[in-house]
């Protein structure tokens, strides 16, 4: 099984751990992630202005490329996933944007939203299946209490993302169970980490990350997992004892691909 794969800038640099272990794990599960040729930065944030076309075009190009390859487009970084999935949603639902985007790009075949955008976790849930995943685990993380940190971008706005219940998601918790650990539910898991504003105003992300980490620790988590390099940064920078890692790292651990640090 081969899927198209959009890694994004951060996964090629600071977020290598998310990417490397993600790909390795998928290979172990029998799925090859084929990197899209010549992908460009997704833009990192989704422009909320209805009249901004240009900043959404690189996402449209990636989508059109995936459409031409005929395979679903898998993303791993929350930000890329957010931008690409919403762009696809808008192409499908906003005729004006669709026409204008196609006019700009003048592709051979107009892009009409044919591609399917999947997050890595959606592939695990809907294509591999958490039951199957559980069976392939060789080193279950038994006894670990892991809190899932969703952040904002995977879940909201739920209409366009259609990823999971935006207020009570379970996909990461199901994942945690599949790798043999115990999921810890805590309410702040879908609240913001402070995002890019950390650049200008670190106090805001301190407050936000603090609230998230405190809540997770209070509910008994010993580790937090995330799918977003920026969330990881904010939580680690403002964190205390609670380790924060990419979910793909734990996946690789459970599949026996990654050495467990002592």
């Amino acid at each position: 099984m081969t899927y198209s794969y959009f890694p994004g800038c951060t996964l090629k640099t600071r977020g290598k751990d998310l990417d490397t272990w993600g790909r390795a794990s998928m290979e172990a599960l029998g799925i090859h992630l084929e990197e899209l040729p010549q992908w460009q930065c997704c833009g990192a944030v989704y422009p909320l202005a209805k009249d901004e076309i240009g900043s959404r075009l690189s996402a449209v190009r990636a989508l059109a490329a995936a459409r031409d390859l005929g395979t679903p487009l898998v993303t791993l970084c929350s930000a890329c996933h957010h931008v690409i999935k919403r762009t696809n949603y808008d192409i499908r639902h906003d005729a004006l944007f669709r026409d204008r985007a196609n006019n700009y790009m003048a592709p051979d075949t107009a892009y009409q939203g044919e591609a399917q955008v999947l997050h890595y976790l959606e592939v695990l849930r809907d294509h591999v299946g958490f039951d199957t995943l559980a069976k392939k685990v060789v080193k279950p993380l038994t006894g670990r209490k892991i809190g899932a940190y969703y952040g904002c971008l995977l879940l909201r706005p739920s209409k366009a993302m259609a990823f999971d219940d935006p207020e009570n998601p379970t996909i990461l918790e199901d994942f945690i169970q599949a790798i043999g650990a115990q999921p810890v539910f805590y309410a702040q898991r879908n609240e913001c980490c402070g995002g890019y504003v950390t650049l200008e105003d670190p106090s805001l992300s301190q407050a936000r990350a603090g609230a998230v980490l405190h809540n997770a620790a209070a509910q008994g988590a010993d580790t937090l997992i995330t799918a977003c390099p920026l969330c990881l940064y904010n939580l680690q920078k403002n964190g205390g004892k609670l380790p924060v890692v990419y979910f793909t790292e734990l996946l690789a651990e459970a599949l026996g691909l990654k050495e467990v640090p002592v």
Partner: protein
Amino acid sequence: MQRIGVFVCWCGSNIAATVDVVQVAQALAKEPGVVFATDYQYMCSQAGQDLIGAAIKEHGLTGVVICSCSPRMHETTFRKTCQKAGLNPYMVEIANIREHCSWIHKDKPTATEKAVILGRAAIAKVHLNAPLTAGTSPVTKRALVIGGGIAGIQTALDIADAGFPVDIVEKKPTIGGKMTQIDKTFPTLDCAACILTPKMVDVSQNEKIDIISYAQVEKVQGFVGNFSVTIRKKARYVDESKCTGCGLCTEKCPQKKVPNEFNLGLDTRRAIYIPFAQAVPKVATIDPDYCSMLKSGKCGVCAKVCAAGAIDYKQQDELITREYGAIVVATGFEPIGMDKFDEFAYAQSPDVVTSLELERLMNAAGPTGGTLLRPSDGTHPHTLVFVQCVGSRCDGGEKGKPYCSKICCMYTAKHAMLIRDKYPDTEVYVFYIDVRTPGKNFDEFYRRAVEEYGVHYIKGMVGKVTPQDGKLKVQASDLLGGRQLHIDADMVVLAAAIEPDKSARPLATMLTASMDTNDFFTEAHPKLRPVESPTAGIFLSGACQGPKDIPETVAQAGAAASKVIGLLSKDALTCNPCTAQPDELKCNGCSSCENVCPYGAISYIDKPFRGPNRTTLIRRVAQVNPAVCQGCGACTVACPSGAMDLQGFSNKQIMAEVDAICR
């Protein structure tokens, strides 16, 4: 050829000042078929009516045209006049030369010319009128009430009081509805059970009322005065006639872990149960989903302990078909699910409850015996946060409802007040968007909650509830104070929007009663006929028609009952004779008319017709039930072959009017 008389009214100077009535009468006298034409000061006066009557007899008139005020004013008057004189009342047509002519034109020649044309159109129509006789249909003097909550109970009691037999169909094992779960009622704070249970007893003791509990309507046929309804009475595996309601079985049943729906799952019951002590009928019911005897044939404890021998594991569903003259819908409401609003952590913490759950937690017969305790740890809560409008007033997306649920502001004030009264050491916060208290003594009640009981009303909304360290961390806005609030609460209470009961939609289909997009039943007229469905013989009681509190529900229940009594006290119903009529020779049997009929007045039969060469052809043809047809005419246009026509407004009549006007 008709013999037509034309009567032009002056209406004092109302018409005569701008229309030359004499000239109109003279002009119309020349129209074909007109054998008599005259004018008079006031046609509607006794003298005017006598003049018409005399002319009918003297000239042997077969049709009458009255040029006067609007038919909405005096059509009935003149129909009666003609009937007295021996002419069929439907041989009268009115030319409206007052509202549509003399009153809106100033120039006399212009108005006179128009009056003549309007008169001609009426004459052209009368030429094609046919005598119509209003048919009658008998009335079955028994009513069906669907739903046994306070609405259904009140309606049934009122109808029975007037001497008519009533059946109540209730889907639960007991009547009583939502009100049985409520602790106290606003704005008087009297106990709900104290005012409801005597009524439930009245129902059970009333000889005219038959309670069919644990049952649902399966099929409805017929029309106003003549409904035939099939009711499925579900097997309760207990013989109702033998069970004494002693309750021994409900204590001995070994299956103890059944969520108790009466307490909204806050505690458990047994697999055989009586919902609550005052249930009517007070009869045990076996829950087939949990009873091990029914599931695996092992157990039988209840049968062993039952002295009355009432347990019957072999009982089957029973189908009952009965005839009714009227049907009252009283299917009530349900609070919506909270699964789309988990920012309030309803799924994450047992200490986040809905208002109805809070009623159970405060009720003496509830899981905590009336002491307010946190479901998570059974401790006494010291800080409570109420959130209003959860799921109400949403913009119509997948989340929530677009309407105001109407009752939440008041019951929240009640809850806040009761808690502050009983536990003065608690702090109570109510987050509101607007406080809506239109009702007698309602605003005073809400003010008392604030002023006497010190409930903190904060304009704003809760944005997030985070369970942490045994508390519920509430993040909210205080719009008037201009701040974001963070409250460590012990409990959060959600005022969940209410929606019509799920059984309402399929029921509406069976009844051909219309519903709005929110599944509330629509009334025949929003102002003037609020307790009737547009479908004749179907009446609406309580929250099935829209959110309502108890006094409104009872008032509407009484109103629905009085409408039913009015219907049932007639021996026969006079039908509107201006109904649709199919020409069977032209009918294709294609169902187009049936598709657009809002009343379900059209059915089909297979009928033999003579075919070529002495053969017989069976054809499907439409039949209109004149007792049900209201005469809108939707079918006449839907019919491709023009087989369907409307009496009193036939194709030919309307085209004759068109021709006369365009001549």
